[in-house]
């Protein structure tokens, strides 16, 4: 049997198999060295067995092993258990097989996630180990109603996906729909939670984000308290939350740890920033190409003076700067931090300044693109979507002017309004307008005044504050 297992695992270098004699009985061990705790194996399994006097039976074996995770398995389950990090023990005098789970692999400690840094509030972030993530969530929600259910997704990877929710709060129908979708996924592998995003989205081809993502346990716990379902995917520090509405990305965990009036101001600033990022470059081009007569005279003169040397059309000029920025962004992401800094300096200062001095680009165009790109990162979770929309509106502004830009905006918002995820309208609680949910919408009230759970999606218990 040992030979068969070795063959099935293609004689993997980390596969350990050993046979020892205990009295008259041959005892065989099979495990993966890379996935098991060597110390526990020696002290809790190997030592008690090798020191055993007499004829070893399966029942006695289960008694002497110093571990609380001992189970009998069938022959078909051997491979699965070995791959999971268990030690499989075979006895020559018995058909029964014993597996002891002593899985151990290196994981990083929870640290502050780079995508959601906070000034105040908890700094812990999820890690790649799903069990660590479960413990982080348990620490936030000490409740017997906190449920973790496991589903395996991926024909090859068999990735463990933990469906987590608060019983009596999360809507049963939504939960059922999520589980059904997960069970129906027939993909070879899920190596990160993002794989599930498109598989669970109602409109997988849409550019709109339809599943919530977070790296912070406090955010996920807060969302679960609102009635959402969290999906913890093994090997991914990003936890998914369902249902998702756009407002979630407009909110920041900082908002709840500072004064609510200040948080309201910040949310307004984020909305203005989104509008600047989306429509800024397009509007600049539209005004320059189509509606220069509506520009104030002084501003028009400034633009005319600065653009008269530029050999390109305004559209090409803006597109060139935007692409340059995108290239620099990509480079700075992929290079080591010390090189990334140097690239930023070269890109932003030298290229920009020299470009203006050489007359290839104009200062107003640089300023417009810079504002749009900086504004983009006030809502980093939506940066990818806004970047795409930015290019679309740039094209519309350059070809159709103000009429086209407003038309494009209406088109886009109508499209967003037609998207519903697990029964939650994408733009709720703004449209449809839900008065109660707007207590935590653009305006924010103190947490004590948020007496009900969101009405944007279904949940089983409306009241938060009794």
């Amino acid at each position: 049997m040992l030979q068969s297992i070795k063959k099935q695992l293609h004689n993997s270098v980390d596969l350990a198999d050993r046979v020892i004699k205990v009295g008259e009985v041959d005892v065989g061990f099979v495990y993966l060295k890379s996935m098991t705790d060597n110390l526990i194996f020696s002290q809790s399994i190997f030592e008690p067995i090798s020191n055993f006097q007499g004829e070893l039976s399966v029942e006695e074996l289960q008694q002497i092993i110093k571990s609380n995770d001992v189970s009998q398995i069938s022959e078909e389950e051997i491979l699965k258990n070995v791959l999971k990090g268990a030690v499989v023990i075979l006895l020559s005098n018995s058909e029964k097989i014993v597996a002891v789970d002593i899985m151990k692999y290196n994981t990083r400690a929870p640290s502050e996630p780079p995508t959601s840094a906070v000034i105040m509030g908890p700094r812990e972030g999820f890690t790649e180990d799903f069990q660590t993530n479960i413990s982080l969530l348990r620490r936030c929600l000490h409740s017997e109603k906190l449920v973790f259910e496991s589903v395996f997704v991926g024909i090859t990877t068999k990735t463990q996906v933990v469906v987590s929710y608060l019983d009596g709060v999360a809507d049963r129908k939504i939960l059922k729909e999520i589980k059904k979708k997960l069970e129906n996924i027939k993909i070879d592998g899920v190596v990160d939670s993002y794989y599930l995003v498109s598989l669970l989205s109602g409109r997988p081809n849409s550019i709109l984000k339809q599943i919530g993502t977070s790296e912070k346990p406090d955010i996920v716990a807060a969302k679960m308290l609102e009635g959402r379902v969290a999906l913890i995917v093994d090997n991914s520090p990003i936890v998914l939350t369902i249902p998702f509405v756009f407002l979630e990305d407009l909110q920041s965990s900082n908002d709840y740890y500072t004064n609510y009036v200040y948080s309201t101001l910040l949310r307004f600033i984020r909305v203005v920033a989104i509008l600047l990022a989306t429509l800024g470059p397009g509007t600049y081009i539209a005004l320059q190409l189509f509606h220069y007569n509506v520009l104030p005279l002084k501003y028009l003169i400034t633009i005319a003076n600065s653009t008269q040397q530029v050999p390109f059309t305004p559209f090409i000029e803006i597109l060139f700067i935007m692409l340059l920025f995108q290239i620099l962004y990509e480079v700075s992401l992929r290079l080591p931090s010390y090189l990334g800094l140097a690239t930023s300096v070269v890109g932003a200062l030298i290229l920009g300044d020299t470009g203006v001095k050489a007359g290839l680009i104009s200062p107003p165009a640089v300023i417009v693109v810079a504002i749009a790109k900086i504004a983009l990162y006030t809502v980093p979770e939506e940066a990818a979507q806004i970047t795409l929309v930015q290019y679309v509106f740039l094209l519309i502004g350059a070809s159709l002017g103000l009429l086209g830009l407003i038309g494009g905006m209406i088109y886009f918002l109508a499209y967003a309004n037609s998207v519903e995820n697990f029964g939650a309208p994408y733009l709720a609680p703004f449209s449809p307008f839900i008065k109660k949910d707007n207590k935590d919408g653009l305006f924010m009230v103190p947490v004590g005044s948020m007496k009900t759970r969101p009405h944007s999606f279904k949940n089983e218990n409306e009241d938060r504050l009794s």
Partner: protein
Amino acid sequence: MRVLDKTLNAWQLGILMFVLLFANKILVLPSLLYEGAGFESIFIPVLLFLLEFGLVFLFYRLKTKFPNETFAQILKNHFGNVVKVIIFVIFMFFFLSKAVLLYNVTYIFFRNLIYKDYSNFLFLFCIIPIITHLAVCGLRVMGRTAQLFFPVIIVIIAFCIVVGFFGINSKPLLFEGSLSDFVLTTLKHVSSFGDSIFLFLIMDKAIVKKKQWKIVFGFSLISAILVVLVTVVFALSYTYTAFLHPYAIFEIMSYVKEYGGLGRIDIISMVVIIIFTYFHLAIYLKAFMLSFHEVFRKVNFVYPVITFNLIFLVVIDFFILNLEKAVVYGENVLPYIGIFPFVILPIAVGVLLLLKKRKPEKKDENYMKKSGVEVDETKKVQNSGGKKENLKMTDMNTENLNQVKAFSNENKKDKKFLRKVIGRRESETAN
């Protein structure tokens, strides 16, 4: 087409009403009214809005009497299929004509002000995809999107009106013009109103509880007040030169050009007009689609869209694209169309209301109880949005229908009424 079938709540309906009643009345109408009737023209919108509210009230009464039926079903049941088809053909013609006028006026406005060197095709290229998208996505999506723009629109219009007061430079006297001018101008521009007949087309989709009707009426009232205010401010600002300033909402802002270092803030009035134009044209297209669907029942939704856009393009290219021609078209051709919303439709609805003398819901329920049909209470509560209300006919299934049929055969006295109930239910099921 799944999205098309979705319903509208009171807020969304109210906002669509606001768009319908307000949109095309703030651009050239105040100037034309002033030209025809002098300063007394400020009373014309008041008068015509009263008629418009009359239409909304008629719709409310009809909706109360026939809560689960479409206007087409009601017409068919009471007047026959031919009358229904004729009325819906007029609906199609009405909305198409108004769409053409609205497009022309807006085109000329933009052409004169911000798109001096560009052809009509650029406009069409902007407008047709957007209005088609809005109309095809459905009423709910349209209502929700309009809901997003509503606060912006209200703030801008209020700002425009406040700013417009700074431009008032005269105190014209009332009652100096002649009554005949007043009447003639009112009749000439009657077709600028009457858009609320759109409500009749979405009768089954408007899910408004009894207490929520005030929201719909409230939005209608807000739009009326704002139109009257714009007309008054415009009349006071351009007492002697109204004919030189055709675009009311834009003209009342012209005093603030370069005001206080803020630059051209008059542009914001243009933004409002653009937003209104898109939504208003989308509603017209939607109205055309719904009417088309009632006339040609089995056609796909693509056909009314193509028909509307084709006629729209042909009419526009042959017709106007010139303010004088647009005004002639609006003043000489469209007034006849105004007969439909203000004469034909109210008469038809009045007759329908007279015909429907009974209270439908309770009586239907009584008959069903008499006939031994059990009503699912849970379903009743769900259908009425969580509150127990009168049973709606939608709760009847095929089995129940057969039971009612058998009962009606046994009790000849109630036969006629029950036949009507069954007929109505069967046509609902078929739809």
